[in-house]
Structure formats: C-alpha cells, structure tokens
C-alpha cells in the first residue's frame, strides 16, 4: 500500500514538473539598492558611449519591450533566463535583451506563446566580435562563468576599466558588455586576453528590455 502511494506521488510530481506550466514562484523582494546600482550602471554606460563618441545609433524608445524575468536560475551556470513575453507580445527569436537601454544582457533563443528564453552573456557557447575602449581595439568576446575577451592584439594599449561593447552584425553596435577587469598574456604570446566585469548580476535582474 505504502509503495503504491509513493509511486502515485512520484508520477504526480513528475507530471506537474514536466507536463505543466506550474512552478513555485520564488521571488525575493527587490532591493532598492539593486535598482539604484542598475541605474548607475546604465548611466555609466551612457557616459562611456559619449566618450567614445562614434555611436550614432539611438534605438527609439518604442523599439523596446519591457519583460519581467522569472525567478532565479538555481545553478552556477547562470547562462539563461526566462522572461514573461513571447510570440503574442511580439518577441522574435534572436531579439536582443538589454538592461535599461545600453547594457547587453543576452539574446532570445527560444520563443513560446507567452514566454521566451534568453541566453545571457554568461553562456559558455556565446562568442561575438567586440571592440574595446576609445581606441576601438578588436577582440572576441567569449561567454562563460568568467566572461572574457580573447584574441586581442598584444601590442594594443589596454587599460583596466576600458569599456567592451558589441560590434557584431547580429546586434546593435555599441551595446556595453562589460569592462576590462584583468589582463592576461596568452601562452603563445601573440595575443592578450582580458577577463570582464559584467555590469549586472543575473540573480538581481527583475526586468529586461527586448529590442523588437
């Protein structure tokens, strides 16, 4: 009897977990400090944009759709998040997700009727061409738990704190990805690489803007 009860319970839980949209919301209260920190990062990104001075493109306000981020990704990998907007709300695969207006968070990889999945810059399989600082030095962004820029010409002058921004055709030019946080020489000695400081914490994201 006890055994059958356990079997029924296991089946019941498995059906709910894998066969339905039910999930337990585990929303923590949104800290005011976190909001201010995110606003601060956006203002910093805007200043860096002005300093470089060649980013002509401004995305019109109506080109953005605000979407809420579903609870916290419970693993260290933090490579994706789910948002509460999908096909019905006009989200398309490969749409770009940003924080405020200028900070690249990720890219939509799957779209459902009312939800979408966004791959973040922490995804280890994400690579894209980037530029660094006022000198517009070329590099290659490599996502992961410790996002970094690789294949940087070793003779180019780099400073800690230099801004790294998107330069891929897939994205809007000049979306901030992070800042140089640590510089390293690679084994071969031809290139340098730099570890990035990403201006947001995936766990602290409560909403993102999707560029339609």
């Amino acid at each position, binding site marked *: 009897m006890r055994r059958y009860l*356990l079997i029924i319970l296991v089946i019941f*839980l*498995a059906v709910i977990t894998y066969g339905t949209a039910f*999930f337990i919301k585990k929303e923590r209260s949104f800290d005011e400090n976190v909001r201010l920190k995110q606003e601060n990062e956006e203002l910093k990104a805007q200043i860096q944009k002005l300093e470089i001075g060649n980013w002509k493109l401004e995305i019109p306000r109506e080109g953005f759709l605000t979407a809420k981020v579903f609870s*916290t990704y419970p*693993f*260290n*990998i933090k490579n994706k998040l789910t948002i509460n907007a999908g096909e019905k709300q006009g989200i398309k695969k490969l749409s770009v997700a940003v924080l405020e207006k200028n900070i690249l968070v990720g890219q939509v990889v799957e779209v459902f009727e009312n939800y979408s999945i966004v791959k973040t810059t922490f995804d280890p399989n994400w690579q894209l061409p980037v530029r660094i600082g006022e000198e517009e030095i070329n590099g290659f962004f490599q996502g*992961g738990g*410790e996002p970094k820029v690789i294949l940087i010409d070793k003779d180019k002058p780099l400073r800690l704190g230099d801004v790294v921004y998107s330069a891929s055709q897939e994205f809007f030019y000049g979306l901030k990805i992070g800042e140089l946080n640590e510089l390293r020489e690679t084994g071969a000695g031809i290139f340098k690489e730099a570890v990035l400081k990403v201006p947001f914490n995936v766990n602290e994201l409560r909403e993102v803007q999707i560029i339609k």
Partner: protein
Amino acid sequence: MNYELGIMKNLRLFSLILLVGTLSFAQALGFSVFGIKPNLALIAVIAGFFFISSFWEGFLLTAIAALILKFSPVFEPEILIFSLIGVGALIVKNYLPWRNFLNSLFLIGLAVFTFYLFLAPKLIYSFIFLKELALSLILGTLLFALLSFLRQNKT
C-alpha cells in the same frame, strides 16, 4: 512491532522530505557561499539516498527537489538532467564498494561533474566548477554526518 516500524519509516521519510525541500528552496532562492551556488538539492538528495528504506522513496525525494527547483513555466532541460542524475545515482549507489560515507561523497562528486558535463562542459576547466565541487563535498560530508547522527539518536 510492524506498526512501530511503519511509523519510524514514515517519520524518517518525512524528515528527509523536509531536509530536501528546505535545501532545494534555499538553492532556488539563490543561496551562495562566496558567490558560488552549491547544488544543495543534489547534495541533499544523494545524501538522503543512504537513509531511505526503499527505491521509491529515492524517486520521491528527487521529484520533490525537481519541482521546487523548476524556475519558470517552460520545460527546462536542467531540471530533467537533475532528475536523471538523481535516478542514476540511486541505481549506481547499490554497486559502490566502499563504506556509505565514501560512497555518498563519490556520488556527490560524480553528480556535480555529470551535471556540468551535460549543461556546460566548457566550465569543467574553470574555477567555478572546482569551487562548486569542493563546496559540494564539504556540504555533503556535513549533511551525511548530520543524518547519521539523527539516525543513531533515534534507534
């Protein structure tokens, strides 16, 4: 006598459900140590496997943890992999030759490795993986000790 044994079994299962549920919630709410999120649910489930009285209890613990960890309304491969690793550990557990304590640590290490292998193999070479592995083994040791202590005090 059978009645008492049944009550003991249910009480033990209830305690394990409580433990797995609490740790899964802690993980889902973003519990971290020095920025590293240990896979608390996986550690609790595997340590719990050594204190269950039937195979189906192990399935139940895994299913509860998976439901609590589910973080959005869509199908999540991470949760499926979590469940499959749990079930795999439940089977492999019976074939390990060492003492239960070592078996549990071995299984926790193997489970963390397998989880990364499926979800982010590139991160296996990173410090994140090593830190998580070390933290998981420490927490696994503590949890196993706690569960052993509770069992000894009840019997």
